[in-house]
């Protein structure tokens, strides 16, 4: 069993390493990730949003959906902590 697992780990690890060979070089300006919207953000962010900090412009304007999801995650974490730790059922029993 252990040999099967080891073989599977080596195989999947080898596949992942094989997959990285085709990836563009680190910081390559002509890679797909850097050649479509990134130059647009850098050139147009100040003109379009009057926000000198490009990070803020991307975070809250161009990628506003994503940041709304992040805020919802934080809200969900607070609600989950409250539901687990505040002992609602105990309080309800005392009231009755």
């Amino acid at each position, binding site marked *: 069993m252990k040999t099967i697992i080891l073989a599977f780990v080596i195989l999947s690890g080898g596949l992942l390493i094989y997959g990285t060979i085709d990836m563009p070089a680190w910081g390559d300006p002509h890679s797909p990730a850097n050649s479509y919207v990134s130059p647009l953000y850098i050139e147009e962010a100040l*003109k*379009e*949003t*009057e*926000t*000198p*900090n490009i*990070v*803020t*412009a991307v*975070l*809250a*304007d161009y990628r*506003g*959906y994503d*940041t*709304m999801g*992040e*805020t*919802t995650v*934080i*809200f969900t*974490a*607070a*609600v989950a*902590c*409250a539901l*687990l*730790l*505040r*002992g*609602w059922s*105990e*309080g*309800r029993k*005392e*009231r009755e």
Partner: protein
Amino acid sequence: MLTKIYENLIVKTICRIMIPFIQIYALYVIAHGHYSPGGGFQGGVILAAALALIFLAYGQEPVVRRLTPNLALSLCGIGVFIYAGTGLLCLLSGGNFLDYARLAPILGVAIPRARSLGIFGVEIGVGLAVMTAMYSIIIDVAGNSASPDRHAASSSPENLNNNAEPAA
């Protein structure tokens, strides 16, 4: 459980001096997110740190009296609602969700300025949500009576005697 409060004049005085500056700095981080690193997430966490400092120096009762955990959770929801409401306002004005350019006629400014103000609006929502979420989690984890019912019950004579015992 943090039941023993450190009756230390130095700690309390330093906290009393530091807390307003921490809160002003947090508001600066939120408002200056357009020009420097910062924004709603970072400023909200600093605001929550100021509340945590009150909690550590003065104990649970003074801070819970000012901002109850239930109110904090409601304000957290309001923070998310400010964000989503800004997007919804754009949707109602005929644009896409979170398309701040559509706020320009409502605010009466040019489109780039409207997008800048839209970013500021959602940053305020994020700051409120992060501050109250962090505060709520701190009180839930470290407080000894997070529920309002149990908080009321802790004022019974039996519990008062427990709290009044001097530190060993």
